[in-house]
């Protein structure tokens, strides 16, 4: 699939039930047009990972995800030899001699996400999720892969990408990334969506939700983000919560139902304690007023 303009891509993403703002649509479009990786940063729960899934779906491409963590190494990101099988093979051929090529052939190779993405004949969207969690050594290695789109396996040789995958990196900014990696990528910061967009997202993701409930839930979460919380809720939390409210058959918010369901919006004990009682009643009133106005 090719997209001739940002508008076209934006429409396709909407049809795939993902509502990007103009900035994100531009970033994804430019990433394809310039064939450069795009680095998405933003608070938790603003839909960084979802963006990659939606892009894969509109491109009719396979989504390959590499989840980063501290200690991630080549064996888990690129490839690994299947040692048990190799040992069995040596055992089985006890009498004869085993040639090295036999033992290090493709049938003994375990392919991990990066190799899969490079060595693929179908279109691929490669999602490198939470790159900031990986070690700096791994980041340097990744930089190499992203500049050449090839991987060298000493026993087999160099495998070059026949078609460049679309690459999306996400980071929660637990540390600054290498400048070199940042230079290689487009950068887009995803903020919390506007109230109108968030209502739209909720209505899209929670089919059948009363319009008023969607607006009040979105407005309430927005009020929460304005407080001094350990973890302000993201769009993902708004959706979870709206689902819960809708499943309970609610038409609108009141202090009682918010109190009962607060656990699906706020994930920390101290945050829940901070919005109890009068604060909660006040927030509900404000959210209802804001929803009526929007």
């Amino acid at each position, binding site marked *: 699939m090719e997209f001739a*303009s*940002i508008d076209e891509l934006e429409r396709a993403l909407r049809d795939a039930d993902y509502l990007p703002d*103009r*900035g994100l649509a*531009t*970033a994804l*479009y*430019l990433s394809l*047009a*310039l064939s*450069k990786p*795009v*680095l998405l*940063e933003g*608070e938790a729960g603003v839909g960084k990972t979802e963006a990659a899934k939606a892009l894969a779906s509109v491109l009719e491409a396979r989504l390959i995800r590499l989840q980063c963590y*501290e*200690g991630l*190494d080549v064996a888990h990101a690129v490839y690994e*030899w299947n*040692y048990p099988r*190799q*040992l069995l093979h*040596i*055992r089985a*051929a*006890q009498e004869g*001699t*085993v040639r*090295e090529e036999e*033992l290090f052939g493709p049938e003994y190779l375990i392919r991990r996400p990066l190799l899969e993405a490079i060595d693929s004949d179908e279109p691929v969207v490669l999602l490198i999720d939470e790159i900031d969690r990986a*070690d*700096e*050594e791994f980041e340097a290695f990744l930089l190499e892969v992203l500049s050449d789109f090839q991987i060298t396996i000493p026993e087999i040789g160099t495998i070059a990408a026949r078609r460049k995958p679309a690459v999306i990196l996400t980071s*929660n*900014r*637990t*540390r*600054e990334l290498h*400048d070199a990696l*940042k*230079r290689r*990528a*487009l*950068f*887009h*910061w995803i903020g919390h969506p506007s109230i109108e967009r968030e209502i739209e997202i909720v209505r899209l993701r929670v089919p059948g939700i009363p319009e008023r409930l969607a607006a009040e839930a979105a407005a309430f979460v927005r009020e929460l983000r304005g407080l*001094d919380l*350990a*973890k302000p809720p993201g769009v993902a939390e708004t959706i979870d919560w709206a689902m819960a409210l809708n499943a309970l058959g609610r038409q609108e918010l009141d202090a009682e139902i918010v109190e009962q369901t607060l656990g699906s919006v706020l994930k920390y004990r101290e945050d829940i304690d901070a919005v109890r009682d009068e604060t909660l009643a006040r927030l509900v009133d404000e959210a209802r007023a804001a929803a009526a106005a929007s």
Partner: protein
Amino acid sequence: MAAGDAIVGHVVTFGRVLREAGLEIGPGRVADALRALDAVDLARQEDVYFSLRQTLVSRHDELDLFDRAYGAWFLRAPVLPPARQRTAADTLTRVGESPGDRLRAAEQDEEAGDPLELGASGHELLRDKDFAELSGDELRRIRDLIARIARTRPQRVSRRRTADARGDRLDVRRLIRHSLRTGGDPVDRPFRARKDVPRKLVVLCDVSGSMDAYARALLLFLHAVVGTGRGVEAFAFGTRLSRLTPDLATRDPDAALARCTEAVVDWGSGTRIGASLREFNEIYGRRALSRGAIVLIVSDGWEREDPELVGREMAKLARAAYAVVWVNPLKGNPEYQPLAGGMRAALPYVDRFLPGHNLRSLEELAAVLAGIERRHAA
């Protein structure tokens, strides 16, 4: 390129404007920006804005600067991009006397006066002399000692394994390879082990008026710590928080101190420890900068506003951190009692409470940092 010469000229100049404002804009980025503009509809202002932003900016904290420059350059908004001033003369007139300047001034004094002869016993004396009483010359002499102390970094065990003959895990890949030579029998047994890597270190240094006498020596220490490699973040605070890591990354200590004085807006002002800690927790703690890190706070604990806030924010900080160390130069005085409200509120969340008023106490600090254990559960 379809974009006309006028656009090329515009973007190149805009790149220069951003560079002057302190952003790192290489020719590669400008080329990307032109390619991006070529791909979008120039009539839509929003698309032009995002195309430039996404290709020219790579850090969240540069967005504000970019927006202002963009407004000034493309929208002709009546604001000027906030250019960072870099010359020493500007610094002098802008922030008045500051530790960096004093260091420079002190060195000039020294050139004029008689150089002091210091033998081994002289160094020994210096080790116990309060930083507040050091002359410029003495400060220069202990600079290398400070740097040496700073080089002891606390370590943590990495999850990555590297080849190590005394390791604890068999290196199966190499085992297979080696066994080919011996007809399939594993004669050699290569091992892999986890290695130690430096633990994250976050330093928050009080530069308010009451800490002025110690700030220059402690900044030298900070500079040396940042110079030990990755995983160190340094901040200064008085009434508000400033991130110093990029400024301290300059190799030359004098240049680094000069850049710090530019970066910190409130040298020698009052102290709002609680508010500064909150700013840290909100902006950097949320990014998990402090998670698993050793947090080192250097302050006399004189909170001018709200000691209760200090306690609340210290609790948050201590929960995320691996350990919290508080260095208070006043503690060098044997008669010192932590009576200041802020200090008292903070102490329950502090794992180690140390003085930091002379070289000997810095050595003690380095030893504590190297051997620190987590006191509280995760």
